[in-house]
C-alpha cells in the first residue's frame, strides 16, 4: 500500500517543482498557477500524513526533476503543466485500487484524478475518453 502512496507523493513533488519552473515563464494565468501550486502542496502534505499514519517515513523530494521539454515561454510552460497534470493521473488511479479499503483515501483519489484531468484541460490538454498521459504505460 505504501508504494502507491509514495509514488503519488513523488508525483506531487515533481508537480510542485514543475509549477515553480513553469510559473516563472507564464505570461497569463499566473494566478491560476499559484492556486494550482497551493493545491499540489496540500496534496503533498496529505500524502505525507497518510504515509506517516501507516508508519512509513515519507521519502524526501529530489533536488531537481528532469523536465520532459524545455520551458522557454508561455506556450511551453502551459504545455509542461498540462503534461505534469496528466502524469499524475496514473498515480492517483493506482491509489484508487490500492487505498479502497479506506473510504477517505478512496474518495480523495477519485477526486484527485478528476481535478488533475480538469487542470490538464485548463492548461491546454485535449479532452480524452480516459484522461491519461501520452506514452505512459497503464498501471500493473
Amino acid at each position, binding site marked *: 500500500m505504501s508504494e502507491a502512496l509514495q509514488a503519488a507523493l513523488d508525483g506531487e513533488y515533481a508537480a510542485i517543482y514543475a509549477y515553480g519552473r513553469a510559473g516563472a515563464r507564464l505570461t497569463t494565468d499566473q494566478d491560476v498557477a499559484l492556486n494550482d501550486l497551493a493545491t499540489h502542496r496540500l496534496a503533498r502534505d496529505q500524502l505525507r500524513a497518510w504515509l506517516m499514519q501507516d508508519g512509513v517515513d515519507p521519502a524526501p523530494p529530489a533536488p531537481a526533476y528532469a523536465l520532459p521539454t524545455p520551458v522557454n515561454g508561455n506556450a511551453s510552460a502551459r504545455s509542461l503543466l498540462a503534461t505534469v497534470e496528466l502524469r499524475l493521473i496514473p498515480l492517483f488511479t493506482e491509489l*484508487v485500487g490500492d487505498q479502497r479499503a479506506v473510504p477517505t483515501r478512496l474518495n480523495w483519489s477519485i477526486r484527485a484524478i*478528476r481535478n488533475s*484531468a*480538469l487542470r490538464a484541460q485548463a492548461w491546454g490538454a485535449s*479532452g480524452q475518453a480516459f484522461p491519461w498521459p501520452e506514452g505512459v504505460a497503464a498501471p500493473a
Partner: protein
Amino acid sequence: MVDRRTVLQVAGVAGLGLAALPGCGREDQANPSAPPATPDDQQSDELALIAAYDAAIANAGTSRAAQYQRIRDEHAAHLHALGWDDVTAAQPSTDAVKRNDLIVAERRAIRLRTQAARTTDDSDLAQILALIAASEAQHLVSLEAT
C-alpha cells in the same frame, strides 16, 4: 470483468476507444448460455448520453456538431470499457436536445460514475469509473465554455 490494463492501454494511452477488444466484455456476455444481456445502470446511462448527443448533433451547427461528435465518441469508448459494445442500443431521442440538456446529463453522469467508483467491490472497475468521471468532468467544462 473488464480488463483494465487492456482498456487503459488501448482506450486511454493510444486514444482509440472504439477499437474492438476481444475478452473485454462482461462475463454474462461471454457466456453463450446466459440470458440476453441488458445494460446495467452505468451502461444504460452511457447509452442515454450517446442518444442525447446523436439528437443534439442532428440539430447543431457545424462547429458545435464537431464538439458534440467528439464527446459522443468518448461516451462510446466509455460504454465499450464498461463492457457493452452495441452502440446501436442507444435509442435516438425524438425530442430536441439542447446544450443545457447535455450539461445536465453530464453532471448526472459524473455523479453516477463517482458514486459507483466509491461503492463497487471491483477494484479495476473502480479505476475505470474514476477515469470516466474525470473525462465527463472535462465534457462538462467544455460544454459550459461554449
